[in-house]
């Protein structure tokens, strides 16, 4: 018997496919998310929109909040640590959360290195804006990828940009002659081994969710039609007028993304979506995706 194998790590992400992972900040929100049909929750101290508003340094959540959420729901519980902050990740593993998100939404702790994720029994999900970035995270041991988008904005444009780019770059790798892969690896700053794996499989070797700016059922269906495996919704649910209803609607639209009638039905009468902030209005230093 072997625990913590890569198959076991990436396998949990496979089980989440076609589903919605929701950011929650307390047990009550976690219950709402579970009842709405979320496949997992992300336990946080603040949702990204509030992290933006608060400024300062954003860190791993208080273990008390994470434990309360773990006690409340039976679906998997994920939690975020800062980029490169491997002791926060060790704490999350000690708490036995189900997945660790090494996240740009929190303030990075290491200017050069991400966490060596092979050293952990728990699986990691990491953000990426493009395929080379995703490849570097996979080389470090990530078992799941999500597009970064621009968290806490409610503006889907960056999630779309990143998902389209990753898809396009996967096609490029698949079509590149084998003898030109080394050059591509050099040009992209992407590990050759991962590029070879993508070429052999004809796709990213792990599950890829969309994240960062999804606020409506139609946003979720859009990302699914662009070819992601599922969606993360951060501020979009609990920063809206009617979280329970919106959460259910986004789940429905994610399941039936190919059926505009169902997406229309899900979109009706949800109240105000999160107000949000257009990505174009952000100052350069306010962008989380470049972390």
């Amino acid at each position, binding site marked *: 018997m072997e625990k913590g194998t890569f198959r076991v790590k990436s396998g949990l992400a496979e089980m989440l496919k076609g589903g919605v992972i929701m950011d929650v900040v307390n047990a009550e929100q976690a219950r709402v998310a579970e009842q709405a049909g979320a496949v997992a929750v992300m336990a946080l101290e603040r949702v990204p929109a509030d992290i933006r508003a608060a400024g300062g340094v954003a860190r791993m959540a208080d273990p008390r909040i994470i434990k309360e959420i773990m006690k409340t729901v039976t679906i998997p519980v994920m939690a975020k640590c800062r980029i490169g902050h491997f002791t926060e990740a060790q704490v999350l593993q000690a708490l036995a959360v189900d997945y660790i998100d090494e996240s740009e939404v929190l303030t990075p702790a290491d200017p050069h290195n991400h966490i060596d994720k092979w050293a952990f*029994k728990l699986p990691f999900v990491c953000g990426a804006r493009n395929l080379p970035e995703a490849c570097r995270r996979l080389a470090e041991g990530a078992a799941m990828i999500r597009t970064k988008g621009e968290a806490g904005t409610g503006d889907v444009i960056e999630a779309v940009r990143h998902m389209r780019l990753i898809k396009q770059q996967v096609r490029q790798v698949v079509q590149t002659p084998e003898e030109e892969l080394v050059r591509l690896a050099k040009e992209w700053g992407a590990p050759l081994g991962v590029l070879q794996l993508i070429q052999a499989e004809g796709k990213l070797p792990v599950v890829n969710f969309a994240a960062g700016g999804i606020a409506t059922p139609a946003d979720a269906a859009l990302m699914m039609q662009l070819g992601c495996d599922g969606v993360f919704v951060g501020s979009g649910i609990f920063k809206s007028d009617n979280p329970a209803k919106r959460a259910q609607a986004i789940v429905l639209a994610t399941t039936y993304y190919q059926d505009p009638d169902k997406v229309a039905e899900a979109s009706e009468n949800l109240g105000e979506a999160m107000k949000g902030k257009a990505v174009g209005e952000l100052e350069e230093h306010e962008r989380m995706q470049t972390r």
Partner: protein
Amino acid sequence: MTIGVLGLQGDFREHLHILEQLGIAGRDVRNPQALEEVEGLIIPGGESTALARLLDNSGLFEPIRQRGHRGFPLFGTCAGMILLAKRASPALGRSLGLIDIDVARNAYGRQIESFEAELEVNSIGRVQAVFIRAPQVIRLGPEVQVLADYQGQPVVARQSNVLVASFHPELSGETRLHEYFAQMIVERAHS
């Protein structure tokens, strides 16, 4: 023969991929009409809480239950096994109740306890089994036949037209359980 895979959520594409490897036609089933067009149904791994809810909303719960009672072949892996059982604990809304077992969800513990192991399945042989936040059978009805156990726990079981596994053959590229299920469909057609 066409085998359906419940395509509401979870790793249904992996099941379709295994069917493809076996040269068996497969299709995803997301609504009651699609169910009419298949000779058997696989309920994949996924998040059982979310799947149970989606099963209810999709209008598939009753048609699957009624067909199951009339001998329609069903194969559930992990979450699929939970949905096919009589009872699950912690409870999950409605259960299909098509195999006379009760199951405990996430019985091995959280993700940190998820594991792989090699085990022997009756009339199939050694298989590499991937257990992810897997359930355990806590009550076994008299009509249920155990095809494999691991550390004293039943992990593959069958009751006439219903086959269940608490692990994910579809994740290790294991094709023989799907082959066994296809055989169940052939036998039903000839009976």
